[in-house]
C-alpha cells in the first residue's frame, strides 16, 4: 500500500450527489415493492409445546421421553454446561474455555424447571402431589432406577384413547403419575404459561420453553422438512424458497467439512476461524500480497477502461510542461 496521498488534479465532470441519492432511494423502494408483491415474506407459525405433546407424545423426540430426560438429567440442556448449568465445561479450543470462563448466567435446573415446578402448579390433584412428594423424598439412586426403568418402558409405550400412556408393567415408582399429569398439562396448553412464569407478570424471555422444545423432536422434524438442518446449510436458510441469510455462507460452509463437521467443539472452532478471517478482511490494506492482488489481476482495466482509453494509463497527474 502506498502511504503517498493520491489526489486527482485532472478533469471533473458535473455531478449531482443529492439527486443521485434521491433516485437511488426511489429505485430501491420500487424494487422492494415489486419483490414484495411477487414473493411476500415467510411467516410459518411457531410450534407450541401443546402441539408437540399432542403430535408426538411418545417415541423418538416425543414429549414424554424428553420430559423424562429433563427429570433424570440426561437431556441436551441438562448436560449442556454454561450458561445454563455446571454439568459440563462446554466447548473449548486448545487452552481456551470461554464458555466455562463466562459462567452460568441463565441457570436452569431442568428437573425443577420442566417437571417438578410445573406439576406443583396443578390444583386439586392429591395423587399427583403425593407422587411428587414420594419422588422428591426418594434417594437419588432410587430416583434413577425409576427413571431408567421408565425410559426403557417408553420404547414400547402407546397412548390410550383417553390420553394416558400405556407401558409394560414394571417398577417405576411415582414417575408414571408425574409424566401422565405433565402430558395432560402440556396438551391443555398450560405448560407454556408455566415455563414463562417468573416473578414478573410481563415476559419477554423464551429461553426455558425454547430449550425444552429444542431438546425434543418437533422443531427438528419441521426444520428437516424445510431444509434448515445444520447439514443442509441450515443456518443461512429460512422457511420456504427465500434467500435467507445467504451472507452467512462462509460461516455455514465450515460446518460441512472436516475437521469441523465431526468435532464436538465445532462451534468454537468455526467462530475462531471466522474471527481470524474477519480480522484479515478488515486489515486487507495492511496485508502484503493480499493487498497487491488487485494490481496483479487487472480487473481495474475493466472498471476504468474509459479513463485508460482517454489517458493511455500514464501518470495520474503528469507534471506541467515548462513554458517555452
Amino acid at each position: 500500500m502506498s502511504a503517498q496521498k493520491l489526489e486527482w488534479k485532472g478533469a471533473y465532470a458535473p455531478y449531482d450527489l443529492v439527486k443521485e441519492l434521491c433516485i437511488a432511494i426511489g429505485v430501491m423502494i420500487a424494487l422492494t415493492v415489486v419483490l414484495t408483491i411477487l414473493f411476500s415474506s415467510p411467516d410459518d407459525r411457531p410450534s407450541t409445546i401443546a402441539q408437540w405433546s399432542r403430535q408426538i407424545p411418545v417415541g423418538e423426540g416425543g414429549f414424554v421421553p424428553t420430559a423424562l430426560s429433563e427429570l433424570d438429567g440426561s437431556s441436551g440442556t441438562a448436560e449442556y454446561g454454561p450458561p445454563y448449568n455446571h454439568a459440563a465445561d462446554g466447548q473449548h479450543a486448545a487452552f481456551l474455555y470461554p464458555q466455562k470462563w463466562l459462567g452460568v448466567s441463565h441457570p436452569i435446573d431442568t428437573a425443577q424447571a420442566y417437571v417438578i415446578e410445573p406439576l406443583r402448579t396443578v390444583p386439586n390433584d392429591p395423587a399427583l402431589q403425593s407422587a411428587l412428594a414420594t419422588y422428591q423424598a426418594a434417594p437419588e439412586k432410587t430416583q434413577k432406577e425409576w427413571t431408567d426403568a421408565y425410559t426403557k418402558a417408553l420404547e414400547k409405550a402407546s397412548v390410550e384413547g383417553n390420553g394416558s400412556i400405556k407401558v409394560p408393567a414394571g417398577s417405576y415408582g411415582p414417575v408414571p403419575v408425574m409424566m401422565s399429569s405433565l402430558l395432560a398439562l402440556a396438551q391443555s396448553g398450560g405448560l407454556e404459561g408455566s415455563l414463562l412464569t417468573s416473578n414478573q407478570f410481563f415476559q419477554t424471555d423464551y429461553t426455558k420453553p425454547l430449550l425444552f422444545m429444542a431438546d425434543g423432536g418437533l422443531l427438528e422434524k419441521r426444520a428437516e422438512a424445510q431444509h434448515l438442518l445444520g447439514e443442509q446449510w441450515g443456518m443461512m436458510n429460512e422457511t420456504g424458497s427465500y434467500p435467507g441469510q445467504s451472507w452467512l455462507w462462509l460461516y455455514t460452509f465450515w460446518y460441512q467439512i472436516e475437521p469441523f463437521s465431526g468435532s464436538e467443539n465445532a462451534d468454537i472452532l468455526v467462530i475462531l476461524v471466522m474471527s481470524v478471517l474477519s480480522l484479515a478482511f478488515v486489515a486487507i490494506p495492511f496485508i502484503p500480497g493480499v493487498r497487491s492482488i488487485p494490481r496483479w489481476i487487472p480487473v481495474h482495466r475493466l472498471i476504468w477502461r474509459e479513463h485508460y482509453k482517454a489517458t493511455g494509463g500514464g501518470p495520474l497527474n503528469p507534471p506541467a510542461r515548462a513554458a517555452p
Partner: protein
Amino acid sequence: MSVAPPPKPPGGDSSKTPHGDSWTVRAREAAVGALPPEKLLPDGQPTYVASWIYIFGVATIAALVVIVGSGVILALKGPAWWHDTGVGHFFNSIHMWAVELFFFTMVIHLWGKYWMAAWRGGRARTWITGAVTFLIAIPAALTGYVSQQNFDAQWISTQAKDAMNSVGIGAFFNTTNFGQMYSWHILLFPIAVVALVVGHILLVRRHGVVPPFELEQRRS
C-alpha cells in the same frame, strides 16, 4: 446588578476574538477544515468515476434508508402487528427484501472496492469502516431473524445459541431471549450501522474516490 456584555456575532477570525479558546469554535473549524461544504456536497466528480460499479455504493445507502424507514413503521406498530394484518405483512416484506438488497449491493460494492484497491493513498480508514459495517450488519440481521416470533425465529435462535455460547458471548447475548434480541435489533445495531455508514461516507467525501492505477506503476 452587573449587565452581561452582548454576545459577539458568529463567525469571523477566531484568533482575534475571545472565541479562540472556545471548544465549539475549534470543533467547527476542525469540521469545516476537514470537510469544507464544496467537498461535503460536491457538484463535480473526477472523470474516471465512470463505471456501473460505482452505483452499488449509493444503492447500499438507499437500501439502508428503506430498511430504516420500514423498520420504523414496524417498530411503531409493535412486534406482533405484521403477523395479524396484511398491511403489517407488506411492510415486513419490504423490510426483508430491503435487507436482502442491502447485503447484495454491499457485497458487490466491497468486491468492486477490493479490485480498485480503494485503500490506496491514505484511504485505509475508508476501507476499514466499510468492512466493519458489513461485519456489524450480520448480527444486526441475525437479531431480526430471531425476533420474528415465528418458526424461523424458534429454529434460528435455538441453533445460533450454540455458536454464541461456545465463545462465551451467550452469557450476555441470549438469542432465545426475545426482549433482548428485539432491543439489539431495533436500537443498538441500527445505531452502530448508521454511525459506521455516516463515518464511511464522510471519509469518502474527505479523501475522494480512489484514482485509477497508473498502468506503468502496475507493470513495475
